[in-house]
């Protein structure tokens, strides 16, 4: 369970970004999360609440956009979404692919701020 330390980093980064923009209040943090990041959405959401408690972010929301895993199919020569991370292959032709194009994301994309 490393979601709490990740949530604490998110809170810290949001605080810094808000301060750099002269904002006092962070209403929400938007985050892109891929299944291959090794971070579990539900655990991160509850950890975020804990990390925000008694911080300037208290009461702010974490809005998670789940990013599907995409690989490059060597047979179709095109990017494809995989059906599941237990089966890393092209859903159309079935060719296995180890070239992950997307799905490892763990990034803050936007903040909702006010003065």
């Amino acid at each position, binding site marked *: 369970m490393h979601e709490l330390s990740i949530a604490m980093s998110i809170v810290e980064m949001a605080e810094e970004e808000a301060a750099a923009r002269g904002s006092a209040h962070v209403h929400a943090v938007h985050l892109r999360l891929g299944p291959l990041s090794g971070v579990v959405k539900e655990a991160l959401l509850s950890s975020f609440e804990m990390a925000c408690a008694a911080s300037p972010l208290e009461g702010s929301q974490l809005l998670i956009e789940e990013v599907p895993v995409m690989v490059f199919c060597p047979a179709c020569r095109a990017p494809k979404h995989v059906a599941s991370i237990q089966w890393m292959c092209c859903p159309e032709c079935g060719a296995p692919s180890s070239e992950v194009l997307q799905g490892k994301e763990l990034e803050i994309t936007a*903040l909702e701020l006010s003065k």
Partner: protein
Amino acid sequence: MSAEPRLVEVRKNVLKQNDVVARALREQYRQAGVFVVSLVSSPGAGKTTFLEKTLTLLHSHCRVAALVGDLATENDAARLARSMAPVRQIITGTLCHLEAAMVQNALQGWDLHQLDFLFVENVGNLVCPSSYDLGEELRLVLLSVTEGEDKPLKYPTIFNSADVAIITKMDLAAAVEFDEQAACRNILAVRPCMQVLKLSSKTGDGIQAFLDFLGERRSRSRSAAEAAAWTAT
């Protein structure tokens, strides 16, 4: 009362701090010419026994060292020190994984130029270590025959973050009716093209093949680094 919030675009990798340190470590390793291998697995998969065997065999003709991460105790470092290679323990306390900065701190005072191989044994955990780059060149994920063939399907992320899978405790395979084909099929389902090696640290079967593989990967990596340096000049 605060005003209507405004949406501000920010692009920030949450693990940026770790990634920056990992990149610096990778560069440091490249310059020193040391090949760095990390090991991940569930607790009890045989990382320490495997590493002790590897260090002992490599120590006779190579310069090797190891870092070993654990929540508590220095037992693993004491076990690995029997190989006569320099070993340092990283005690993580409550943290369930190693981070690049912990590796960086643990390396203080070691001259990496004096090493051919450095091994970094992560905390036994198949979940959290997958998120953290340690600057290693090769990440090995160990799976012991006693754990069940479907481990890769249960923990796809860690298998996906690793470069090579090592099936350990092969001497127990028959006793636990280990289905090797199913295990390999599951490994390849979550990480297509992954190289799989099988061995027993107890009997030594398969260890030489692993050492040959390691030597080959190291020379390949050195040639690539030399070619890159030559192109850059």
